């Protein structure tokens, strides 16, 4: 099986293959077929070209909606993808048995190990992995049609990374669903302090100053603050996600907190406090502040994402 440079892709692709007819360059198709090495696990060129056409059409080769991709743009688009992973995923979603054999050989154990690492429990991990595996195999149906989550994989990252992220999503959604309801008795309302009436104005000014200062933070700065202080992530964990060194994260965090402090001081002075009074206001007991920093840091902007959170 395979294609030699002298063979015509149209001829080898078989009847009814729309690859070239849909504007896919024959030379490019041959090159991608060779690089993809899908022949090794039994994919046929016809199915391969169908998958490519569908991928290209779905994403319009990475261009805006009405633009028409040139052959160079098509080539750039496909070369920017993890095409081997993507073709395997699509073939699995199409129900290709040989693709499934390949998928199981490559990812079944990896999926299980990733699930155990994510849940921190062998039992939960096995359960999570099995559940996702069943979904991937297409056991769930919607409107009488088999649904396979692998169809949503678009090849921009690795397939194993996509699997890990999907597992993490399932786990987090399940966890949040099952832990949403907290018993009331765990909420310990703070005692009302009758004393601070005298400093009420100062406290209000401080609350506003902090609110405004946080509102001016850049997205990445807010991400750092939230990940480090709200989620309690370590510098190393944050560094791994941002693909930078942890010393860089540490420096950025320090810069952000320093900048935040200065900004709060400036805001207090703008509100009419002297420098000294502003610094004293910063020393106020945080319990006196009526602020929910989690909400302040996590205000919502216009969303560009389509995936709905699990109910």
């Amino acid at each position, binding site marked *: 099986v395979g294609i030699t440079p002298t063979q015509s892709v149209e001829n080898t692709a078989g009847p009814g293959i729309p690859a070239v007819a849909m504007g896919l360059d024959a030379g490019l198709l041959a090159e991608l077929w060779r690089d993809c090495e899908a022949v090794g696990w039994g994919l046929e060129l016809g199915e391969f070209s169908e998958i490519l056409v569908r991928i290209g059409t779905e994403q319009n080769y990475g261009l805006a909606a009405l633009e028409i991709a040139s052959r160079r743009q098509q080539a750039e688009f496909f070369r920017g993808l993890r095409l081997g992973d993507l073709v395997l995923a699509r073939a699995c979603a199409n129900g290709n048995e040989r693709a499934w054999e390949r998928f199981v050989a490559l990812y079944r154990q990896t999926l299980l190990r*990733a699930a155990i*690492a*994510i849940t921190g429990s062998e039992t939960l991990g096995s359960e999570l992995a099995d559940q996702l595996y069943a979904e991937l195999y297409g056991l769930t149906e919607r409107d009488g049609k088999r649904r396979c989550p692998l169809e*949503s*994989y678009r090849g*921009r*990252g*690795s397939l194993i990374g*996509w699997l*890990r*992220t999907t*597992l*993490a*999503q399932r786990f*987090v*959604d399940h966890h*949040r669903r099952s832990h949403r309801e907290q018993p009331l008795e765990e*909420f310990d309302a703070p005692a009302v302090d009758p004393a601070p009436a005298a400093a009420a104005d100062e406290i209000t000014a401080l609350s506003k100053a902090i609110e405004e200062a946080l509102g001016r933070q850049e*997205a990445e*700065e*807010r*991400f750092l*603050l*939230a*990940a*480090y202080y*709200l*989620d309690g*992530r*370590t*510098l*190393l*964990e944050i560094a*791994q*996600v941002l*693909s930078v060194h942890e010393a860089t994260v*540490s420096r950025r965090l*320090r810069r952000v*907190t320093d900048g*935040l*402090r200065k900004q709060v001081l400036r805001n207090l002075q703008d509100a009419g406090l002297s420098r000294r009074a502003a610094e004293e206001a910063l*020393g*106020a*007991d*945080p319990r006196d*502040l009526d*602020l929910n920093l989690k*909400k*302040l*840091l*996590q*205000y*919502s*902007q216009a*969303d560009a*994402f*389509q*995936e*709905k*959170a699990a109910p």
Partner: protein
Amino acid sequence: MNSTSQLDFHPDAESLNAFAEKALPERERGQIVAHLAECGRCRQVIFLARQAAAEMEVEAVPAARAAGRSGSWLSDWRLAFVPAAALATVVGLAFLFQGRHEETRTEMARAVPQSVPHGEASVAKPAAKERVIAGKTQGPASPVPAKNSEGDESAHLADLIDRDAGLSHAEANGKIQSTAAGAAYVPAPAEVAPPRAAATESVTVTAAPPLLQSENASAGQVIDTDKINATPLNGRNWVYIAQLTAGQNSSAAPSAPQPPTAGMRQRVTGTNSSNTTAAYAPKAKMDEMTERDQASRKARAGYAGSGGASTSHMKKNAMPRSSYDAGGQMPALQFEAAPEAKPAALPSGLTAVSTATADNRTLAIDQAGALFLSNDSGSHWESVAQQWSGRAVDVISLQFMNGSAAAAGSSGGAAAAPAPAAEVFELRNDKNLTWVSMDGKTWTAQ
């Protein structure tokens, strides 16, 4: 500002994974970061996925190493590093041994005159003189023993040594030869060279008194498991139990103590505590022992039978770090919230969350987990390089007070206050793992 905290829509697994793998264009990456800043759910997803990837990478590395043995020419050359390293070690040990050997001879030269009475015949003196003369007139001394009366004496001495020390004749002869050659460099022993008995002593005396008193167990006791379990202890360091035992003093370690290991734990339960002290300072060299250490050992030997016990003393000066609570209060924004508790101005500009002081050294951890050291009680600070994983959250100093040692030392005079024997800093990270340091700069995991 919309203060909605629970978002309805999230980036899909494809986008989050592409973000984590740096496969997104800049514009889309910015959108994801903005979303992650707001959305705790997606942050959790991405951190969990990344954590799983890291764990799987760790698992994959040994397998890859095992599989990747063949191929590169460098891997063949790696084999050559083993004998090279072994050779370097042998050469290093030879130098070390040579240095020690010469020092030993120096010790002999000092010790022998005290034990040898004047007027006794010297057998080494003529040989040494002759060798010096030979060195002056005929070049370097020959390694061949002189075949004269001294040679006969040497053979006789060798027989004595052979009987005395259980050495072979050839070995003993070699030692005599070595000692005689040494006399050419050090005139002192030649002038007061010992008679036969002294020669035997000069072979057996090696250096300072032995590190361990191994004849009996009067200065130690067995610490069994029940006692360990029943003793209230600040955490995990079993060495503190050993130091609570009668006759123990952590100052027996002249150099930086080695951190206890799991293997050492067995030694505590099965051997006397004198051995435990030695295990705590396995690198202590005999020739590095100071007079103070020797005096300390003597003092311990003196008071050990009286049941004197060391006491440990902990100093802790830590502000507990506030944790994020359900109400969303963020500790980092409490920077100056409690000015009365602020211990010092750190170079980072952040507030110290934990400090510890021992002697003139002060350690402080700021809110970002950075560690600073001050040698002048907080006037100047220097940053300490991170040698621990995670975020440092707490530092304490542990000070061991040896009350019994003080009592033993003052048996002939006025009672003295307990003197600190050793101070150790202990650092804890956010995963509750600990590191120890003697100087605050070099940290070792426990």
